[in-house]
C-alpha cells in the first residue's frame, strides 16, 4: 500500500472505529463520534501537510 492518502484513510478509519466503540455506548452515538473523529484525522493531516509544504526539510 504505497499511496499516502490510502494509508491515511485506512489508519484514520480503523483508529476512529476503536475510539468510537470504546468511548460511546449506543450505535448512533458511535457512528456520529466515529465519523467526526475520522474527519478530524483526515482533515487535520491534510491541513498540516499543506501548511508544511514550503518546508520540505
Amino acid at each position, binding site marked *: 500500500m504505497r499511496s499516502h492518502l490510502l*494509508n491515511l484513510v*485506512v*489508519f484514520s478509519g*480503523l483508529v476512529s472505529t*476503536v475510539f468510537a466503540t*470504546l468511548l460511546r455506548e449506543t450505535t448512533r452515538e458511535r457512528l456520529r463520534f466515529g465519523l467526526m473523529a475520522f474527519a478530524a484525522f483526515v482533515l487535520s493531516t491534510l491541513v498540516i501537510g499543506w501548511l508544511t509544504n514550503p518546508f520540505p526539510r
Partner: protein
Amino acid sequence: MSETSAASAARDSSRTVAAGLMAWVWPGLGHLFLARRGKGLVLMGSILALFVMGVLMDSRLQLHLGIEDPLALLFSAAQMGIGAPYVLARLLGYEAGLVTSPTYEYGNTFTAVAGLLNILVLLDALDTARGVRGK
C-alpha cells in the same frame, strides 16, 4: 463480611483478572469473555487489521528491553501491547522488517498504534468487569 459476599467478591475479582488477561493476550477477547460480543468483535477486527497491515508494510518487530535507548524500549513496549499476535508474527519470521521499504515507517506506526489501542481496550475490559462501565 459474610461468607457469601466474600465468595462473591473473590469470584468478581478473578473474573476481572481473567478479562484483563484475555484482553491483553488477544484483542477483543476480554469483551467476548464478558459477553460484550458486538463490541469485542469490532475491537478485534479493527486492531488486528491495523496490526496485520503494519506487519505486511514491513514493520520491524524487534524486541528491545535495554534502557540505553529509551525510545526503542517504548516503541517495543507499544508493539507488545497487542499480546499474542506480536509473538505469532515474530514466530512466523516477520520480526526483522525491511528498513529500505517505502512503507517501513507506516508499518511501524500501524503496529505500535495497534498495541497502544489494545492497552486502552484492556483498561475498558477491566472497567467493564468491575461494573464501572455499562454496555
